[in-house]
């Protein structure tokens, strides 16, 4: 077993500032205390003297331009789950450690990823790309990894003796013990974990309680950690609410990118794809705009999902500025990557039809791409329809033109010769579109072959209905 622990010191900050990236000095407020105190501040704010634990008034005095937001614990939970979904690609056992850490068992997947250095690189690379500052440590014991992730970023210890030795050197304040236990041990003159490990067990239990001792057992691997395994959810629903109303589609792209990335992470965890999702924009007075993004085949690539959603969003007309954006996908079918023949040379862009179809639809709109189907109806204008073609049945016996005019029109000039006909077409008395015509194949003065008809019993009033192109 090798447990890797990821800690995200900036998680609370990212969750609160999910809507728009912070610009300039910003800080986070802890709201559970009676006094509203600064919990975290970014580099810009720290440079001007804003510190953790200051009151909001003091911080504002130091830095008048400070942007302050309250902590959003729900958003933090969601963000942690989203990161867990992403981590699921590296391990089958991922566990959340609120508020800001994730544990994953990577011992079983080391071979797959070519060993720890490569795996660590991939984890870190992916997180940096997503903009999440993090620390990482790995040991055979989950709790010890959690301790080292906070104190020694990048630490990897494969065996037990090393873990115990490294733990021994840690000051008590970094041991992860409850604060009361630490202050008690401090009062007794202990400074490092080494000192505590040497104490006889009954003695120690009396001083720091059962919970403290059990914690010490767990970090040394003398007791097992019970870690609930995180399971990827079966659908995706995430909403980002804005502090201010955003006008037009351009400012919406940043939150949209976050949402599509979160969706892609979930899809990677489920080894699934998405074929259809809905974007809902909320405006003032309860108005909403819904944009459905549908794909020809399931997709899972973050960049691709973003591009598709973005083209749809940019084409949509928004009636008013938006207050919130929500992405909802409830069908996450199994993803099957396209299968290609090993020896088949890739032509051109090497796209498959669903990809091309999507690209065309994204630019031209859904209505621009059509297929034809034969309908078993005698009336010429109803025998051909746009739809989903199936096996063809009931073809008319007479010759039919390749081009059909959208509606028959008077024929000018009149035909010079009749080549075939008449073919009487009489149908539709039951549905109100009664048709009674005598069709002829005729030739025009230019040598064109046309499909034209006359009302039965007459000899002029030619109506042109198609070209034998």
């Amino acid at each position, binding site marked *: 077993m090798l447990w890797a622990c990821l800690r995200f010191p900036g998680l609370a900050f990212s969750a609160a500032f999910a809507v728009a990236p912070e610009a300039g000095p910003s800080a986070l407020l802890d709201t559970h205390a009676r006094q509203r105190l600064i919990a975290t501040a970014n580099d810009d704010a720290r440079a001007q003297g804003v510190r953790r634990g200051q009151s909001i008034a003091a911080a504002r005095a130091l830095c008048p331009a400070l942007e302050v937001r309250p902590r959003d614990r729900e958003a933090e939970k969601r963000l942690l789950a989203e990161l867990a979904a992403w981590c699921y690609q590296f391990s089958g056992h991922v566990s959340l450690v609120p508020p800001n850490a994730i544990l994953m068992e990577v011992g079983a997947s080391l071979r797959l990823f070519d060993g720890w250095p490569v795996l660590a690189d991939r984890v870190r690379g992916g997180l940096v790309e997503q903009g999440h500052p993090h620390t990482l440590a790995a040991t055979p014991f989950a709790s010890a990894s959690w301790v080292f992730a906070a104190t020694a970023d990048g630490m990897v210890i494969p065996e037990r003796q090393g873990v115990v030795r490294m733990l021994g050197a840690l000051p008590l304040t970094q041991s992860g013990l409850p604060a009361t236990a630490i202050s008690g041990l401090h009062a007794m003159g202990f400074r490092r974990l080494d000192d505590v490990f040497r104490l006889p067990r009954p003695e120690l239990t009396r001083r720091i309680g059962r919970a403290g001792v059990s914690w010490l057992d767990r970090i040394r691997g003398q007791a097992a950690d019970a870690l609930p395994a995180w399971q990827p959810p079966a659908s995706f629903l995430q909403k980002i609410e804005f502090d201010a109303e955003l006008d037009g589609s351009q400012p919406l792209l940043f939150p949209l990118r976050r949402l599509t990335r979160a969706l892609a992470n979930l899809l990677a965890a489920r080894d699934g794809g998405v074929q259809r999702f809905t974007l809902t924009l909320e405006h003032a007075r309860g108005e909403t705009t819904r944009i459905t993004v549908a794909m020809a085949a399931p997709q899972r690539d973050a960049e691709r999902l973003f591009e598709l959603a973005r083209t749809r969003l940019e084409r949509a007309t928004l009636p008013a500025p938006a207050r919130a954006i929500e992405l909802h996908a409830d069908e996450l079918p199994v993803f099957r990557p396209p299968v290609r023949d090993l020896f088949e040379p*890739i*032509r*051109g*862009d*090497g*796209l*498959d*039809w669903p*990809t*091309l179809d999507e*690209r*065309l639809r994204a*630019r*031209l709109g859904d*209505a*621009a*791409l*059509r*297929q*034809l*189907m*034969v*309908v078993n109806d005698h009336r*010429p204008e109803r*025998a*051909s*329809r*746009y739809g989903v*073609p*199936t096996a*063809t049945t009931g*073809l*008319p016996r007479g*010759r*039919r*033109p*390749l*081009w*059909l*005019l*959208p509606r028959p029109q008077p024929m000018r000039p009149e035909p010079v010769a009749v080549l075939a006909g008449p073919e009487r077409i009489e149908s539709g008395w039951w549905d109100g579109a009664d048709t009674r015509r005598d069709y002829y194949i005729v*030739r*025009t003065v*230019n*040598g*064109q*072959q*046309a499909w034209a008809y006359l009302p039965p019993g007459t000899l002029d009033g030619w109506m042109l209905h*198609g*070209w*034998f*192109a």
Partner: protein
Amino acid sequence: MNAIASATSNLAQVLDHPGIWRRSADRQPRVRALSTGWASLDGRLPGGGWPQGAVSEILFEHDGLGELDLVMPALAALTQEHRRVIFVAPPYQPYAPALAAAGVDLRFLHEIHAGSTEAAWSMEQCLRSGCCGAVVGWLPDIDYRSLRRLQLAAESGDACAMVFRSAGHAAENSPAALRLKVSNSDEATYVDVLKSRGLLTTTAPLLRMRA
């Protein structure tokens, strides 16, 4: 040794390019082609049909002379092999019963409805994608540059491009590999060749239809 082998195979590939004609080679240069389905036409076109990976331009005087009949057998054969055929911006509604009667498997025929600039773009995308057998476009006001783009896209995607335009453009310069003119006289339709990559064996009309 390997380097020499790969260099000669590269050279062979270059010399296989339909744009290159070698006097010393066979009488028929190697143009890969798609049978037109018209025996007399296949016999006279270089390569024996519609050039593959290239643009064929069909200039027609009027609607209804048989200009579509000319390409239909090749398109039908493609759809029967489950390869896609795309109609880009057709001037009228393609009529399903007639297409089915001509042997087209409608599941592999797609129509793109688009304005003139979008039509050229769509046609280029389809050609370049490499997943379409033939792309047929009605582009009345396409210019030389756009045609050249289509030619390059057809080469890269190894697809067959067919562009229909009015016969009024016959005098203009064109990068198409094959240019045919469909006209009518004496109650019959004639197909003449205006330009062809590779050697033609005749200058007489290639085909007489509907006589």
